[in-house]
């Protein structure tokens, strides 16, 4: 039982140790503690998973009652079922590999100690998020990972652009979080508890499917999920968040934190099932996001931004899966995505590391022979991302598309959109591979990745390839999906699309038969490319709609408009003072006369009142 408590405790303890050392700890010790603690957690998770797979027993552990006010008594308690196990495995497993990788990647950084502090804190918060038995504790983890993300994106604080990106990440997600908090208030007020399992039972007994309240509650929760998982319309922070160190992008902005939204919806699926309109909205949001992000990724030239948009797009798939009710498929894709996207980011990090922090893909090229391990990793990652047959991504994405197809009414539309997205995915993935690793060399790498980098890469390669055959222990978590008859034509199309994308990418970026330069020769096409490059101008739109007005209003008000009232009172007083000052003119005769006037008036009053 106590292994459960140990899992988040290890990274937390490690972070505390690192904080208390105040940066004076030698870097090899800091790195060992930082990575080792996550490794220990991973071992604990593995032990836990082995037991769980053996008996399928849901584990619960209450540490203490957080607070108890009236009937509201959330606990610091864990609830470990199949879904949590999957998430914890991903977090600690992939997390450990990334920590290991970080040791080499960050070795030369002066603040490696601070780096591992933040990373460990993040892992701890993320673990709390997925292990929490109630939504309040989940919210603690949720905000905790947000802050860690902020700290890590802005890790290199000396450049204020990084700070801006970090702030944007935090504030945009905070908007979603606030919606989620409101959702929590609604659930607490209506259902009287935030403990997830009793809450879903209470919801089932109190609410009918399609009632306004569950729709509202789930819509608010969805707001949180959309913010954290970088879905439309709150996705704009993720590309900027690439300002952080690359392992951070791999861990937080690809594998774990950004999928928290997916986890949240899956965790509270019982509520979402009561709200079909929200479910539909989830699906459409996912679809729109995956398409918009896919198109945007096509036009980028920063290696990390491409991956960021691809992450947004892949999470769009997960949302699509959740929206059509295929929760298990969504989680499945979450896991495979964690593998291959972490792999891609780490490989991209290796490229960046070996090319003196070069991010622009057009200044790379021909790295296939110079960085063979990285090439292998990147190729496998891209293949999985593009869902080429028999990679892990293939299985998960295929499951999603089939579930979408099976849905009535809107299903085929969603399926078609997803398919288009798959095509786009394939094109931009291989565009990346072809431009970076093929063609002529433009920048020479000055080093090769060492074992701490290569090891995690190779392990993740393996996971990306075989991850599709894992059977996730989700049977007890979600209601059994309806068996749908598989339409073979649909399946073949799903398989063929990525290959078509690969072909197109080859023709455009390697073979040269379809020259991109020719395509964008016309002004319309160039405008379209610029439009995609700017991320559909959504950032500019928000700038005009929110950021600039907020700044303007705030600066306009900075000198306290309310004070105008009080200054008005002061001014009125001063005005009266100056008027009355005339009476106090220092002329003796005037005083005498006014006294006489007073006397006259006084006597007049007396006479009038006299009987």
């Amino acid at each position, binding site marked *: 039982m106590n292994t459960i408590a140990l899992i988040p405790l290890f990274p937390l303890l490690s972070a505390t140790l690192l*904080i208390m050392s*105040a*940066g004076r700890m030698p870097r090899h010790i800091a790195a060992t503690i930082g990575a080792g603690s996550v490794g220990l957690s991973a071992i604990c998770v593995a032990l836990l998973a082995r037991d769980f797979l053996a008996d399928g027993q849901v584990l619960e552990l209450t540490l*203490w*009652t*957080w*607070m*108890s*006010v*009236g009937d*509201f008594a959330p606990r*610091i308690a864990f609830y470990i079922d199949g879904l949590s196990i999957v998430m914890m495995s991903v977090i600690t497993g992939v997390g450990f590999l990334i920590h290991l990788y970080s040791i080499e990647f960050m070795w030369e950084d002066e603040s490696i100690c*601070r780096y591992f502090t933040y990373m460990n804190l993040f892992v701890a918060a993320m673990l709390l998020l997925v292990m929490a038995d109630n939504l*309040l504790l989940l*919210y*603690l983890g*949720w*905000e*905790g990972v947000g*802050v860690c993300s*902020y*700290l890590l994106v*802005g890790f290199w*604080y*000396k*450049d*204020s652009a990084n*700070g*801006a990106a*970090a*702030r944007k990440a*935090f*504030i945009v997600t*905070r*908007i979603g*979080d*606030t919606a989620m*908090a*409101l959702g*929590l*208030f*609604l659930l*607490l*007020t*209506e259902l009287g508890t935030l403990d997830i399992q009793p809450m879903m039972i209470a919801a089932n007994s109190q609410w009918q499917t399609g009632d306004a309240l569950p729709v509202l509650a789930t819509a608010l929760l969805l707001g949180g999920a959309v913010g954290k998982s970088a879905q439309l319309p709150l996705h704009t922070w993720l590309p900027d968040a690439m300002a952080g160190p690359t392992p951070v992008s791999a861990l937080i902005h690809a594998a774990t934190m950004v999928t928290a939204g997916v986890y949240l919806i899956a965790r509270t699926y019982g509520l979402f099932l009561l709200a079909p309109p929200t479910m539909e909205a989830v699906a459409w949001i996912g679809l729109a996001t995956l398409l918009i992000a896919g198109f945007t990724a096509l036009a980028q030239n920063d290696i990390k931004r491409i991956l960021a948009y691809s992450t947004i797009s892949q999470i769009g798939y997960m949302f699509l899966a959740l929206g059509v009710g295929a929760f298990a498929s969504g989680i499945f894709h979450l896991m495979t995505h964690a593998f291959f996207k972490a792999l891609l980011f780490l490989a991209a990090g290796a490229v960046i590391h070996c090319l003196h922090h070069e991010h622009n893909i057009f200044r790379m090229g021909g790295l296939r022979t110079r960085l063979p391990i990285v090439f292998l990793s990147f190729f496998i990652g891209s293949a999985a991302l593009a869902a080429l047959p028999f990679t892990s991504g293939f299985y998960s994405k295929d499951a999603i598309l089939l579930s979408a197809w099976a849905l009535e009414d809107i299903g085929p539309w969603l399926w078609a959109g997803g398919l288009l997205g798959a095509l786009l995915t394939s094109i931009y993935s291989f565009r990346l591979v072809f431009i970076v690793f093929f063609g002529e060399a433009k920048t020479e790498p000055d080093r090769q990745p060492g074992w701490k980098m290569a090891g995690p890469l190779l392990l993740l390669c393996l996971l990306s390839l075989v991850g599709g055959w894992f059977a996730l222990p989700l049977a007890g978590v979600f209601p059994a999906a309806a068996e749908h008859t598989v339409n073979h034509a649909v399946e073949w199309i799903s398989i063929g699309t990525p290959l078509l994308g690969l072909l197109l990418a080859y023709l455009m970026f390697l073979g040269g038969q379809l020259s991109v330069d020719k395509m964008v020769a016309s002004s319309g096409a160039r405008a379209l490319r610029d439009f995609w490059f700017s991320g559909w101008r959504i950032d500019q739109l928000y700038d005009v709609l929110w950021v600039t007005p*907020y700044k303007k*209003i*705030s*600066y306009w*008000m*900075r000198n*306290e408009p*309310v*004070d105008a*009232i*009080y200054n008005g009172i002061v001014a009125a007083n001063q005005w009266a003072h100056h008027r009355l000052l005339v009476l106090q003119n220092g002329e003796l005769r005037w005083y005498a006369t006014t006294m006489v006037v007073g006397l006259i008036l006084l006597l007049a009053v007396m006479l009038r009142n006299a009987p």
Partner: protein
Amino acid sequence: MMLELIMLLLAGGVVAWQSERFNPNLPRWIAMATVILGMLLLLSTISGIPADTFNMVTEPSKAENWLLYSRHEWIPRFGISLELGMDGLSLLMLILTLALGAIAIVSSWNEIEFNPGLFQANLLWTLTGVIGVFLALDLFLFFLFWEVMLIPMYLLIAIWGHENRGYAAMKFFIFTQVSGLLMLLSIIVLAVQGAGDGDISFSYGDLLGSAPTGKAGMLTMLGFFLAFTVKLPGFPFHTWLPDAHTQAPTAGSVLLAGILLKTGAYGLLRFCIPLFPEASMQFAPIAMTLGTVGIIYGAVLAFAQSDFKRLVAYSSVSHMGFVLLGLYAWNSLALQGAIMQMVAHGVSTAALFMMAGALQHRLHTRDMNRMGGLWYNAPRMGACAMFFAVASLGLPGMGNFVAEFLVLAGLFAVSPWMTAAAAIGLITAAIYSLWLMQKTFQGKPDEERKLQDFDRREMGAMVIMMAALLWLGLYPQPVFDLTQPVLEGLQPLIVNVPETLAGNIPGGTP
């Protein structure tokens, strides 16, 4: 004990003042010793109270079940007595006051060069007034302490403040004094009319439930409300606060933000609402609107400031809006949240002001445009600032989150729309807090800058405050347990909450 505690601080002030003649370093030691003695006195007294007393519901109108109660005749002709009482709420506030008093002394340890004796004396006398306010049960006595708290604070700002201290001190004085006089008027009305049959009584217990009804009740209540809201400060009576905070010396800011503001909240909870249940509940929608507007307004203005202390001051306006909301929502969740916010905000803002004071002491500026990248020069300061910045934006796991969550959760049952509006404050809080970090500790560092990082003394104070916030965030139950009986005693005083509230607020019945 209560009278002794007040006397101890008063006398400590006098001694500290006079000790300056012997050695200019002596006053701060004496002040520190006085506060620690006070704390020990308090703790030893509490340990003597039987444990089950803490769980008994406090009957506000009776002397029983108060943890401590004492009454001496003072001016019997007018029904004025030295009536002091301590329940869980007062106890909590006393602990906060003494702890932050110690922090304030630490924060100005090396800062005061002019007349240190009088400075420490004023500090202690402010504490005296605050403690008196938290203990007084006689309204006349309460008013006396209310004024006692004001004057030393005025002197602290006016003598040891920064460049524009005269203006700030005068503004602070006029705002609090005018509203205080209105309250005196209300107190007298209540004392004369409340007791009935020609007797005058200022005793809290006698006056409960005797408020005039109708329009007169509303007007009398407004006298109290104004005094407390100015102190709180609630929008639109907050404008003295940014000036006073900015100009006050560090210890003054710490005291102002940490405890003086809390007296306003305490007054609302202890006096304004229970004494005028009917008028207060009629007024609740307006009070809550003021709270909501204050939350957003403070946050928006905080973002636009370039003065470190001013920014923190506006953040106080924003945070105290939650208290106003919580108090007038008047259900267990919201009330506990409001109390928690009083404590957590006291600690987190005190820390931020201490940070500001430390920066000003070292850099001789509060202008954030002249800072930037300080993390490079002083990582320990940076880490502390980051901690308290995220505490201030309401990160779960810290006391501020517990407070804001409970307030909003409680408010949601009363008015979902108001909750939604107030929740915007969570976003805007993130904006200004992170902006603060960006302008000061992040960004391009000046590598030539010599900046003394926190020393052991300052780090000690910071660590204590961090630990306190984490404790409040992760295991706030002791605080709730302490105040629960008090609230259970107060809540029945208002019988018609749901109807009045629901009837007055749009969407009141969810």
